[in-house]
C-alpha cells in the first residue's frame, strides 16, 4: 500500500482535511521510530488503496520541538510515497522556509493551499497553476472546512500517485518566496475586520477576564445540564441490564465467579461507560473553543498569572476543564509542545475538584453541615482545590521546566463545522475507551478481590482484606480523624471518586437519608471535613491514572502523579484535623 503523509504548519487545517478525506475510519497507531501515536487511515484513490498519515503540525524541520522530532523520526523510519503539504492560503508568504526544507527530503510533494474561503475574503488572489509550475509540484487551492475543490484535490492526488513524480526541483526559500510573490497578490490592508472588532471586546483590558470567566461558567453549566441526564441514563441502563439480563442468566453460576464477573468486570465496564457522556461533551466544548479561535484568546488573558507559576495561559484552561472531568483535561494538554510544561500541567490537573468528587461532597456536606453554611463549605473545598494546584505548580516548576516560549498564532474567529467537531470528539472518546478500559476493569477487579476475600468474610465488611488494610492504615489515618470504615470507602474511591458513596452504602448497610444519619452519628463535622479534604486531594481516580500513564508515557512521572497528591492529602488533612482539635481543646 502506498503511503501519503500529511504535513504542514499548525493551524493550517490539517486535521480538518484529514477528517474530511477519511471520515470516521481513522485509527491511532504506532509507527517505527516514533514515540507517539499518529492517526492513520486507508482510503481509496481511484482504484488504488492508499494509506494517509496525519503528522503533527510543525513550523520547520529544525527539531526544536517534540513535534518536529516526531515528524523527522517518522520520515526517517517510514517510506513515504507522497507528502501532502498543507499551507494556509491567507499566509502562503511565510510558509516558504518549511516548503524549502521539505523539498530537500526528495519526496514527491503536493502543495495544498487551504482556507481558500478566508483568503478570498481578505482579497488575496492566488494563481495556483502558475505557482505549481514555478515550484515544480502540483498546487491546489481548497477549503477543507467547506469541502470546496475536494474533487480537484482527489484527481491531483490520483495523478501524483500514478505518475510517481520525480522529486521536485531544489528551490531554496528565497526562490520560493519569489515564486509566491509573483503568483499571490495580497492587498495592502488585508485584515480580518470582524475578528478585530470581536477582539476589542473579548480582549478588553477590563472586560476581557470577566467575559472569559462568564463564558467558561456558561460552558460548564451547559455541559452538566446536558451531560448529567445522559450519564444517569447510561448508569441506569447498566443497572437495568444487569438486573434484567445478567443476574437471572448467571444465577446458576458459583457465587465467586458471578461476583468476579458482575461486581468486578461488569462494574468496571459500567464505570468506563459512565465517563463517556462527560468526555464527549467536554471534548465538544474543547473543540468548540479551539475551532472558534477562543482558546488562544483565553491563553492570552490568563498568561500573566500562570507564567509566574511556571505554567502558561493554556494550562489554566485545561485546569478549568479539569473541574468537570480530569480525563479530557489531561488529554487536552497535547497542544503543549514543551514536555516540561505539559507534565507540570498534567501534575496539576488531578487536583481540580471534578464532578465525581462534587457528588461525594454534596452528600457529606448535606449530612453533616447545617444548610446555611453548606455552600460555604463547598466553596472552601474549591478554594483548597485551587490552592493545592497553585502550590503544586510552584513546588515542581523547577523540576518540570517550561522551555517553550509562548508564541502562539491568534487565528481569526471562525465558525466551527459540526462535522469536524463531532468527528474529533468521537476520535477522543474511542482513544479513551481503547486506552483506559482494560486498566480500569483490572482496577475494579482488584478492589472487588480486596473487599471479597478471604471467602468467609462478609462482602465489604470486617475481616476482608480491604478491612485488614484499613486496620493497618489506622496508625497513619487516625491522626486525620479517618476511621477504618471511612478508610475502606477511600480504597473504593481509588476506582472512581463517586464510588465512595456507594462504598459507604455497603459498609454502613444503609442508603440515602438513613445513611446520612448513620454517618452523622459516627463522625463529627471536623472528621467529615478532614475526610473530604483527603478525598479531594488523594490519588487521582483510575481513569485519570490510566490517562496520565497513556499521555505521559513515563512510569516515574505517573508514580509521582499518584504519590505526590497522596502525601499532600495527608499533610493537609493532618494540619486541618490536628489544628481543629487544638482549637477545640483550648
Amino acid at each position, binding site marked *: 500500500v502506498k503511503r501519503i503523509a500529511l504535513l504542514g504548519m499548525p493551524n493550517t487545517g490539517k486535521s480538518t482535511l484529514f477528517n474530511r478525506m477519511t471520515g470516521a475510519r481513522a485509527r491511532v497507531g504506532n509507527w517505527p521510530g516514533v514515540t507517539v501515536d499518529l492517526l492513520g487511515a486507508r482510503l481509496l484513490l481511484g482504484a488504488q488503496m492508499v494509506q494517509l498519515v496525519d503528522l503533527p503540525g510543525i513550523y*520547520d524541520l*529544525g527539531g526544536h520541538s517534540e513535534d518536529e522530532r516526531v515528524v523527522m523520526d517518522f520520515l526517517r523510519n517510514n517510506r513515504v510515497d507522497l507528502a501532502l503539504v498543507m499551507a494556509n492560503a491567507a499566509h502562503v508568504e511565510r510558509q516558504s522556509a518549511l516548503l524549502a526544507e521539505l523539498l530537500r527530503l526528495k519526496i514527491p510533494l503536493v502543495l495544498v493551499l487551504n482556507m481558500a474561503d478566508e483568503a478570498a475574503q481578505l482579497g488575496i488572489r492566488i494563481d495556483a497553476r502558475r505557482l505549481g509550475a514555478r515550484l515544480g509540484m502540483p498546487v491546489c487551492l481548497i477549503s477543507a472546512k467547506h469541502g470546496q475543490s475536494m474533487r480537484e484535490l482527489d484527481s491531483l492526488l490520483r495523478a501524483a500517485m500514478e505518475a510517481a513524480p520525480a522529486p521536485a526541483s531544489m528551490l531554496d526559500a528565497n526562490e520560493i518566496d519569489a515564486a509566491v510573490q509573483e503568483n499571490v497578490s495580497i492587498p495592502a490592508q488585508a485584515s480580518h475586520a470582524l475578528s478585530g472588532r470581536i477582539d476589542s471586546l473579548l480582549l478588553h483590558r477590563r472586560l476581557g477576564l470577566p467575559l472569559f470567566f462568564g463564558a467558561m461558567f456558561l460552558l460548564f453549566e451547559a455541559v452538566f445540564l446536558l451531560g448529567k441526564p445522559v450519564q444517569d441514563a447510561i448508569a441506569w441502563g447498566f443497572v437495568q441490564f444487569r438486573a434484567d439480563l445478567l443476574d437471572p442468566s448467571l444465577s446458576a453460576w458459583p457465587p465467586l465467579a458471578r461476583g468476579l464477573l458482575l461486581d468486578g468486570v461488569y462494574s468496571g465496564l459500567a464505570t468506563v461507560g459512565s465517563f463517556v457522556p462527560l468526555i464527549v461533551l467536554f471534548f465538544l466544548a474543547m473543540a468548540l473553543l479551539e475551532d472558534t479561535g477562543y482558546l488562544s484568546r483565553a491563553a492570552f488573558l490568563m498568561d500573566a498569572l500562570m*507564567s509566574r507559576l511556571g505554567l502558561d495561559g493554556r494550562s489554566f484552561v485545561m485546569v478549568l476543564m479539569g473541574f468537570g472531568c480530569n480525563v479530557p483535561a489531561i488529554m487536552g494538554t497535547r497542544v503543549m509542545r514543551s514536555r516540561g510544561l505539559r507534565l507540570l500541567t498534567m501534575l496539576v490537573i488531578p487536583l481540580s475538584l471534578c464532578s465525581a468528587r462534587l457528588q461525594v461532597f454534596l452528600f457529606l456536606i448535606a449530612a453533616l453541615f447545617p444548610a446555611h453554611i453548606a455552600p460555604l463549605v463547598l466553596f472552601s473545598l474549591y478554594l483548597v482545590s485551587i490552592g493545592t494546584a497553585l502550590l503544586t505548580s510552584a513546588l515542581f516548576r523547577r523540576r518540570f521546566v517550561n522551555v517553550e516560549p509562548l508564541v502562539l498564532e491568534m487565528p481569526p474567529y471562525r465558525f466551527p463545522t459540526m462535522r469536524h467537531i463531532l468527528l474529533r470528539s468521537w476520535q477522543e472518546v474511542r482513544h479513551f475507551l481503547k486506552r483506559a478500559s482494560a486498566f480500569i476493569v483490572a482496577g475494579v477487579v482488584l478492589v472487588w478481590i480486596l473487599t471479597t476475600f478471604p471467602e468467609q468474610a462478609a462482602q465489604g465488611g470486617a475481616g476482608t482484606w480491604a478491612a485488614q488494610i484499613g486496620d493497618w492504615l489506622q496508625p497513619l489515618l487516625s491522626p486525620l480523624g479517618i476511621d477504618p470504615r471511612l478508610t475502606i470507602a477511600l480504597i473504593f474511591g481509588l476506582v472512581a471518586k463517586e464510588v465512595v458513596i456507594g462504598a459507604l452504602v455497603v459498609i454502613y448497610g444503609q442508603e440515602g437519608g438513613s445513611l446520612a444519619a448513620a454517618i452523622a452519628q459516627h463522625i463529627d463535622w471536623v472528621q467529615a471535613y478532614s475526610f473530604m479534604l483527603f478525598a479531594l486531594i488523594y490519588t487521582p481516580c483510575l481513569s485519570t491514572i490510566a490517562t496520565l500513564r497513556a499521555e505521559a508515557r513515563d512510569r516515574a512521572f505517573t508514580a509521582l502523579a499518584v504519590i505526590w497528591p497522596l502525601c499532600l492529602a495527608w499533610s493537609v488533612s493532618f494540619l486541618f484535623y490536628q489544628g481543629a482539635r487544638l482549637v477545640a481543646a483550648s
Partner: protein
Amino acid sequence: VQPSRASAEPLKSTLDTLLAGSEGTILSVDAGEALYHRLAALGLRVGKRIRLLRRAPFGGPLHVRLGTTEIMLRAGEARCVQVALDPAPPGERR
C-alpha cells in the same frame, strides 16, 4: 522613498516597550535559533511591518499583527525584536 518620514529620524525601540496601536518595521530579531525560527515561521522577520494591537492585563503577553497574521508573544520574547517606529500620524493613535 517615504517623504512623510523624512522630517524625523525613525524612533528605534524594542517591541516590548511599544505603545498599543503603534506600528513600525522590524529592524532586527535577536533571538536564539529555536525562537528565531519560530518567529520567522509566524512571519516575524526583518523588514516586515508590525503593529502592536494590545497588551494583556497584568503584564501579560502582547498581541501583534504581521501582514495577515496575528500572534501573541510574551514581553520576554518581544524584547528580542527591534522596531523602527513610524511617526504617528495625527489622530491615528488609539
